[in-house]
């Protein structure tokens, strides 16, 4: 799965997610990616999220919208992302990762699995990582 979130100079946010699904899946199996609120969500009143990981788990907790709810309660992008991922891990034993941005340009790349390839461009600076702590 691949995904992206963005906020422009006027605070407009957007998300996009695309996937081949899971290896050896049953024909017709659809995971979280095309489902609004799970594979991604974007709302100018809060921010945008794109998710990846155990699709069925992400669907059950509606992960992308769940993270934005935490941000509506005043949590930072990083706290909200971690809360959503830990909820998914404890509630449905699912692992995954998210990239999140808010309308002021704060961003995070967080994951509960062992690794997630990510990159961010802001203020003409490139950030990237793969393993925890990067």
């Amino acid at each position, binding site marked *: 799965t691949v995904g992206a979130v*963005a906020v422009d100079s006027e605070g407009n946010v957007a998300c996009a997610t695309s996937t081949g699904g899971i290896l050896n899946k049953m024909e017709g199996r659809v995971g979280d990616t095309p489902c609004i609120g799970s594979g991604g969500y974007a709302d100018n009143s809060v921010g945008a999220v794109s998710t990846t990981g155990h699709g069925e788990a992400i669907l059950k907790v509606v992960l992308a919208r769940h993270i934005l709810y935490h941000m509506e309660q005043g949590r930072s992008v990083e706290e909200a992302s971690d809360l959503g991922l830990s909820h998914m891990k404890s509630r449905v034993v699912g692992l995954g990762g998210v990239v999140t941005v808010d309308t002021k340009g704060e961003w995070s790349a967080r994951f509960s699995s062992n690794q997630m390839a990510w990159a961010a461009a802001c203020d003409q600076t490139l950030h990237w990582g793969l393993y925890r702590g990067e």
Partner: protein
Amino acid sequence: MRPVLVVHGGAGHIPSERAQGSMGGVCAAVKAGYHVFTAGGSSVDAVVEAVINMEDNPHFNAGRGSVLTAGGQVEMDALVMDGRDLSSGAVSAVSNIANPVKLARLVMEKTSHVCLTAGGAAAFARQMGVQEVPTESLITEYSRARWRKNQAPGANPVECQMGKMG
């Protein structure tokens, strides 16, 4: 405020020999998407451009390089959402499309629906003049080798999915 773009290339296991390709891929995608901003594009333009870049990169499980189904085929899903008016477009279980995220954006912009699936999505793609590609062009040696390796003879396609990442 300066624009921000953040991309991910998936949270599943990346073998060490492919780590560099994945890292190079997400950096290339974020540059391609950010360039859209400098050219005056919108946030939707930027995220779609970044995802197209990764769909075309065989290092990622999307577009070319997608993992295979139990039957050795490709079935892809994609979503786009615009925070300005909550408009959204998605496609699911599409097979002969090089860039599903482009088709998802067309669903958002050219229909009153949010999601089109399988045969309906394929018919819509033809209506929109989206070129069909042979499934073979989406399958890489790596994805085929993983499919062969992962397929325990007679394995229940659902049970062997447990613990797999999308």
